[in-house]
Each structure stands twice: as structure tokens, then as C-alpha cells.
């Protein structure tokens, strides 16, 4: 079948089942935009206000659907504006296909107007990328791009197509199979390693599971729960593993690491076996690496062979898809009672409480707002966060009954992720409740995307945890830089007026009594809502592992918070 390059690109997207594209037009991708109406409504395009928003929205769309997210940008600045979003998807193993227009072939490499070597720029942050110079290659390249993005350890793929290639006519030939001799992701683990892992688990007296993003990516929720229950093993989830295991499960322990549960950091230090599943022993999880889990042997279940042995030396390594690995492991795992270990974990939880705060504080505490957001949502919503203090509290207090409902920027830590990411989630899950928990600093990095929210009337509920600072920077400056608060205080705009300018309902809460009514009003409203919550400005996020310290050196909650728990416990005993 003869068609233009632009038609081929969209035909390929349709065949790959793409329903939503996030993008912004420009000179070098206009043929693509010119062709879009032919594919409507099968493929819907959402016009973002900045290309970074397109990449983040596509990223979040991919996270909650499990299918590659797609974004469009023009050449030069359009393409370079995607870079942060592509890097974010790269760090968090998210399948993303970015399609950029490029200057016409005769201008490539000659500093043409709006030319940037985007394939060169994105080499270190993509699984693979393509510059298509022949229109007849488009179907093969697009097929490969989707295949590479979504298989093995998922990640972003960029396809750069010059404008004249989009306009040229060629023969559309759809390859039935992808053949890449240099790309063969592992699925099935070595059976000997599975047996070894099962034996290590049975022999272990003090095991812990550390479950990461891989559990969610491979949809191994059921298999993870089966392993935990069958083997009788407590489950810790990393930041990106949150919502991979039911938070109300008796074996659930919460998050570990820099702002993780104090009890987890101490438990990891006492454990004799760590089972890492779909996680990479990131520095935010391990603290100082040489003191990480000093007594433990490691079982590492991981799809990417390059992650095995990178940070820790595993005693057993199951290289393959997390779900397949767990299915095989679960067949061999045997139950074992570990009364001493569970008693010790209960003791650690009692001695090192990590989730309390004074509920009667004069000012609104950010923890209170976040906990109330979870409560009013009844555990049945998607929660998208930015990066910083509010993100860590959102992770600590996470409570939802929905698997894969916590969407956050982990590896890259991209402030401003929350606004476009919430858009991506809401478009992927139209009937569902989506909360964007925002920082006042990060919100201002991407708040132009409120235009998208208003244009498509996406009923997202934005809660700005407004402490008038880059809160995590302020916390580090106060703890490690002698309280020298340089460039962390923010002169904020009136967020309510900003939302109103977009025609979005906006509320403000400055006193504690106003928080829950505002949240409830937001839920009752059909369309998008923004709530500007003025919280205590100098609240620090604890527990905290100081940078460069070991997990054993975790700083717990402030003494007066711990006192609260003690008094509550005493009162209960007295009763």
C-alpha cells in the first residue's frame, strides 16, 4: 500500500494500539499533524503547553496502562524540551516512544533552523533511538521501537523523522515479526538459581522481601503476595514498588531507605536474607552501600543482567521477568514459622514509630493533609506526586487498595512531574479519581499544563502542599548547611488565582479545620479542582538517613512525636 511517511507513522501507531498521543506541533512535524485528523477518534492527540509535559504525560500514561506512552515534538527546541521527560522514563524503566520531527535531509548536520542532534543527545537516556532517512523503513523502525520500549526492562525509544521523509510517499509493509539479533531480553531464570533461592529462603531465619518497580511492571502482584504468604516473609516496597503489595496486609512493612520506615532500616540491618525483586539496590534504598544489610545473603530477581552484581553481590540471581521468576520460585518455596523474627519486627515497630505527628498542631502539618487525602479517597484512587518532602510523606502514608496506583518520579527525581503525569493518568483512566499531590516549588515548573486540564476538562484534584519553600532543600540546608537558607524560600504566586484564570475551581486551606472540608468539596466537584494548602513551613521529613550514612544511622522522628505514641500506648494500657 502506498502512503506518505506521516501516514505510515500514524498507521503504525494505530496498529500498535495507541489511543492517546501527547504532543506539540512545529515546523518539522507538521506533516504528521496534518495527517492526525484521518485517524481521529481512534487516535486522540492531547496538546500540551510544553514538550516536557508531553513526555511526562506519556510516561505516566504508560505506567498505569502498562503500554508504551507516545509523545510528539518538533525538531530542535521541541525535541530538547522532551529530554527531561525521556531521562525520567529511562531512570524509572518506563516504556515511552518519542517521535520527533527533524529538519529536512539536505539540512541535517548543517545547523539548519531548529536543528538539534536529538539522536546524539538522547543516546545515554534511551534504550535505543533511530534517525529514519528512508520512508520505506518507517514500519520496521516503528515496530522495533515499540518492541524495544515494552519488552525486557522497559524504557524510552526515540524515533527522529525528517520533515521531507514524512512527506515522501513509499510502500507500507508491516513486518509480522521483529528480528533483532542484538536484543534478546531474558524471561526465564536459570533453574539452578531458582532452587538455590528456594533453599536460601527456607534456611533463612530473618528474611525480608524488597519489592520494586519490576513487580508492578510485570504485574506480579499476585505472585509477590503468594511468595510472601507461602514463605511467611515480610514485604518492604521501594518508592517505585509502592502499590505493588496491599498496604493493609499483615506482612506489609512500608518503604525503606532515606525517608523510609525507621523499623525497616533497622530490620534490613538485622536480616539474614534480602530478596530483592525488580529493584536495583539504589543508593536511596541502601544508604552507605558497604554497611547495607551486613548480615544478609542476597537473592536478586531482576530482568536486567547489568543490574545483577552492580551494587550488591547476590548469593542467588534469578535473571528474568519478575512474574515468571516468582511463579517458578513459588513452586519450590516452603513455609516456615519465624516467631522470633516477627516478634523482633514488632518490637522495632514499637520502639521506632515512623508515622506519627501531633494531630492538634496549631498550623497545618503536611503529613496531616496527605493522610486526609488518602482517607477521603477511600483507598480507591490514583495518587501522583512531585518530588521532595511531600513526595516522601505521600510514600510513607500511602494507603490504597488499588494495585499500581502510586505514580511518582523515582530515579531522576523530577520536580514538576506531578502536573503532566496526573494528566497522563487521568486520560488513561477516565472514570477514576486522580489526585496530584504537588509541591509549591515543583508545581511552578509545569503549571502551564493546567491549560491541558482545563481544555480537556480532566477532573484531576490538585493539592498543593504549600510550605513557601523548596522544602527538601530547606530541610537539607537546615540540617547540613548550618540553617543557611539560600534560594530555598519561595515568593509564590496566588495559586488560587492562577487556577481560576484557567477556569479551574480553586480552594484554599490555611487552618486545620479547613482541610477536610476542602478535600471533600473537591471530591464532590465534577471537574478539576486545585486546593492550595498552606502548611507549616519548617516541618522536616523524618525518618531520615543523612546523605552518605548507613541505614543503621537513621534519624528517627522528633522526640516529642515519639512521646505522643508513648502517651497513647500508656493510655491504652490504662484503659
Amino acid at each position, binding site marked *: 500500500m502506498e502512503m506518505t511517511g506521516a501516514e505510515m507513522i500514524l498507521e503504525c501507531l494505530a496498529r500498535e494500539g495507541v489511543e492517546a498521543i501527547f504532543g506539540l506541533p512545529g515546523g518539522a512535524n507538521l506533516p504528521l499533524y496534518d495527517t492526525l485528523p484521518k485517524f481521529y477518534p481512534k487516535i486522540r492527540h492531547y496538546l500540551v503547553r510544553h514538550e516536557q509535559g508531553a513526555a511526562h504525560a506519556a510516561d505516566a500514561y504508560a505506567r498505569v496502562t502498562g503500554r508504551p506512552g507516545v509523545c510528539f515534538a518538533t525538531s530542535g527546541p521541541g525535541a530538547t524540551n522532551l529530554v527531561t521527560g525521556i531521562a525520567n522514563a529511562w531512570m524509572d524503566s518506563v516504556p515511552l516512544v518519542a517521535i520527533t520531527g527533524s529538519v529536512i535531509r539536505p539540512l541535517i548536520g548543517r545547523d539548519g533552523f531548529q536543528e538539534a542532534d536529538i539522536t546524539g543527545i538522547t*543516546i545515554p537516556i534511551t534504550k535505543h533511538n533511530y534517525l529514519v532517512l528512508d520512508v520505506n523503513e518507517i514500519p520496521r523502525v516503528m515496530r522495533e521501537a515499540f518492541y524495544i520500549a515494552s519488552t525486557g526492562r522497559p524504557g524510552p525509544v526515540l524515533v527522529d523523522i525528517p520533515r521531507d521523509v514524512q512527506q515522501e510517499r513509499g510502500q507500507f509493509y508491516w513486518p509480522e515479526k521483529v528480528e533483532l539479533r542484538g536484543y534478546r531480553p531474558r524471561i526465564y531464570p536459570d533453574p539452578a538459581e531458582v532452587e538455590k533461592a528456594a533453599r536460601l529462603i527456607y534456611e533463612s531465619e530473618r528474611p525480608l522481601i524488597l519489592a520494586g518497580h519490576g513487580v508492578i511492571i510485570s*504485574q506480579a502482584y499476585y505472585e509477590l503476595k503468594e511468595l510472601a504468604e507461602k514463605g511467611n516473609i515480610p514485604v518492604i516496597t521501594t518508592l517505585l514498588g509502592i502499590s505493588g503489595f496491599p498496604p493493609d496486609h499483615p506482612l506489609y512493612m512500608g518503604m525503606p531507605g532515606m525517608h523510609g520506615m525507621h523499623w525497616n532500616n533497622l530490620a534490613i540491618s538485622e536480616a539474614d536474607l534480602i530478596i530483592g525483586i525488580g529493584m536495583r539496590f539504589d543508593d536511596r534504598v541502601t544508604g552507605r552501600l558497604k554497611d547495607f544489610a551486613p548480615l544478609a545473603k542476597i537473592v536478586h530477581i531482576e530482568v536486567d*543482567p547489568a543490574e545483577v552484581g552492580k551494587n550488591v553481590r547476590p548469593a542467588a540471581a534469578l535473571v528474568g521477568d519478575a512474574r515468571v521468576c516468582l511463579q517458578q520460585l513459588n513452586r519450590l518455596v516452603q513455609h516456615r514459622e519465624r516467631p522470633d523474627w516477627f516478634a523482633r519486627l514488632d518490637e522495632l515497630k514499637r520502639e521506632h514509630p515512623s508515622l506519627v505527628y501531633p494531630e492538634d498542631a496549631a498550623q497545618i502539618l503536611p503529613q496531616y493533609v496527605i493522610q486526609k487525602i488518602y482517607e477521603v479517597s477511600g483507598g480507591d484512587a490514583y495518587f501522583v506526586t512531585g518530588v521532595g518532602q511531600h513526595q516522601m510523606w505521600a510514600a510513607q502514608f500511602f494507603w490504597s487498595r488499588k494495585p499500581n496506583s502510586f505514580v511518582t518520579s523515582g530515579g531522576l527525581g523530577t520536580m514538576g512531574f506531578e502536573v503532566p503525569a496526573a494528566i497522563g493518568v487521568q486520560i488513561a483512566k477516565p472514570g477514576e479519581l486522580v489526585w496530584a499531590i504537588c509541591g509549591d516549588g515543583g508545581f511552578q515548573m509545569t503549571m502551564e499544563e493546567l491549560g491541558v486540564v482545563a481544555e480537556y476538562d480532566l477532573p484531576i484534584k490538585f493539592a498543593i502542599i504549600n510550605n513557601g519553600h523548596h522544602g527538601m532543600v530547606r530541610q537539607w540546608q537546615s540540617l547540613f548547611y548550618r540553617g543557611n537558607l539560600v534560594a530555598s524560600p519561595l515568593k509564590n504566586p496566588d495559586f488560587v488565582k492562577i487556577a481560576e484564570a484557567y477556569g479551574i475551581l480553586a480552594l484554599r486551606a490555611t487552618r486545620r479545620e479547613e482541610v477536610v472540608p476542602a478535600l471533600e468539596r473537591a471530591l464532590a466537584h465534577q471537574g478539576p479542582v486545585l486546593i492550595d494548602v498552606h502548611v507549616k513551613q519548617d516541618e522536616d521529613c523524618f525518618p531520615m538517613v543523612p546523605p552518605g550514612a548507613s541505614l543503621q544511622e537513621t534519624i528517627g522522628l522528633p522526640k516529642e512525636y515519639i512521646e505522643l505514641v508513648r502517651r497513647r500506648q500508656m493510655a491504652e494500657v490504662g484503659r
Partner: protein
Amino acid sequence: MSEGKRNGRRFHTIIALVEDRPGVLNRIASKWRQRGFNIESLAVGHSETPGLSRMTFVVDASHDADQVVKQLDKLVDVVDIRDVSHEDIVAREMALIKVRCDAGNRSHIIEIVDIFRANIIDVSPESVIVEVTGDEGKIDAMFELLKDYGVIEMVRTGRVAMLRGAEASHPVGEGEESYERYPGQETW
């Protein structure tokens, strides 16, 4: 001999089979650069299979090359890669050395060339070009001897290496079935 030593430093020898496409070298070099490796030498050329090139890298072994090799193996354009530093290999390098000479000392140079079983491939009234093949040590030694006559320039190919015996360095893997993620249960 395999884990080469030069000037007291140790080196890894790594061979890779890669797609013969534009940008491949850039992708590979990018991975070494990210980890702060300096590439001592790199030789690239066609392999026995059309469309595939074979590369031989020599990198400083004071770093742990294992991580980079695994990262390189992940590249779509890298079909296979292998660190052969601890294996039984043959390794050779070729150099062209342009040496200043005249009728008076040309015979001295020819004598050195003979001893090293090298060749003279160009002669002019004021210079000769010597072609020498061998391991790095041999080429270094030859260069030292010719230095006294005045070396105008030297160019070296970098090491190329191959396993001894009948074994292929990059056996064609049986390869796993191509894998597309099939949906799991969406509940826990």
C-alpha cells in the same frame, strides 16, 4: 600474555560483534565515557558475516570493566560482547613507522627491519616507511630502535584479538523466543 601489561599498567581486551550501522561507535563510546574509561585502542572492521563488524577494545583494567561490558551487551546494536582478557587468545597490532634516513644509514634500518621480520613499504630519498606486525611489546621495541634515526610519524591499528583453537569468539546463540509481555492479573 592475555591480560596485557604495558608501562606497568594492566589492560582488558574486549571483543564485540556489532551491527554495521551509522552511530554504533557513538553508542558504544558513550557507555565507556559514562563510566570514565579511557579507550587505549580500538580496532573495527568487517566480520565474516555481512552486515556485522567486529571490534577489539583495549581498556584500562584499573576499573571494573564487567559493568560496562554488561551495559554494552544491552545495546541493541551489540550482537555479542566478550571480555577475553583471561582467555587463551592471539593478539596482534600493526604499525606504520615513517623514519628519516638517507643513503648512508638506510642499510642499518633494513637490518633492524629484517630482525623484526617487518617490511619496508615505501622508500624516498629522505625516508622509509616500515610496516611491522606483532604484539604491542614488539612494536614498542621496534619504535625504540628506530627513534634514534628520527621517527617522522607512527600510526598503529590498535590490537585485534581472537580466541585460539576452533572455538568461535561469538558463537551464534540459540537465542530465546522473542518475548512480548503478556498481561498478568491486575489484582493482588
